[in-house]
């Protein structure tokens, strides 16, 4: 059976897995579920995963996408890993501020800053 087309671009460098989104809008429930499962599989590949999620291509996200990020954060912590978010558009960052999720996640302006922050 053919695999569903990935909605992510994944790269590994210096022990850090970086994930970028193919889609500009992270809104659709089914799409979010697929993305969440794909990232969960990446987390489960290693002990103490270092995961960087870059939002450089993303224009819109929904509360369902925020929920998926929270679930991903739990999964990373369960495996004693570290999660960083980066390259978030100012309008989307405001969504994190309004929901106070900027307190829950470690967010950096750029992917380079986020990569350098891993312990």
């Amino acid at each position, binding site marked *: 059976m053919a695999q569903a087309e990935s909605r992510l671009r994944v790269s590994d460098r210096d022990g850090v897995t970086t994930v970028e989104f193919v889609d500009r809008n992270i809104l659709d*429930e089914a799409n979010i579920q697929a993305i969440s499962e794909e990232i969960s599989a990446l987390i489960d590949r290693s002990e103490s995963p270092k995961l960087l999620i870059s939002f450089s291509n993303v224009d819109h996200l*929904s*509360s369902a996408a*925020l929920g998926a990020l*929270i679930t991903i*954060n739990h999964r990373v912590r369960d495996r004693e890993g570290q999660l960083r978010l980066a390259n978030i558009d100012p309008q989307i960052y405001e969504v994190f501020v309004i929901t106070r*999720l900027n307190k829950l996640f470690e967010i950096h302006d750029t992917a380079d800053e986020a990569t350098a922050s891993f312990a």
Partner: protein
Amino acid sequence: MDTNPTVIRDATRVELAKDRGLIDDVIERILGLATEHGFDAGSAFAIRLAIEEAITNAFVHGHSTMPPDSTVTVDYRVSDRSVDVAVEDRGPGFDPERLPDPTEEENLSKPSGRGVMLMRAYMSEVVFNDSGNRVRLTYRREC
């Protein structure tokens, strides 16, 4: 009928099946009209987010006990002064006043419960009908 604050007079009405293409079409139509009426990109971001949350809530929560082919009704009217959108599901409704505050410390790491809060944060006005199965979103141009 006009005493119901969630009713939009002279609205365009669309019946939506749970189909991403149809949902995107109606949101793009409303945002296209908003742009024609002079609403800027920041307004469009806010309006898109709120409509998305309302429609998701209608299908996911409103219709959780309904047949999967149940439709959601979207009414909209766009003018130079405001964008009004009402979203109605066919479910039993809920009490929006009983929703926990998702920004409280104990709720911060819960994966759901932010949709209504985001609608209220980004819209000028958010009104539910008495049974809680219809919400009217109003975005007014800043004077």
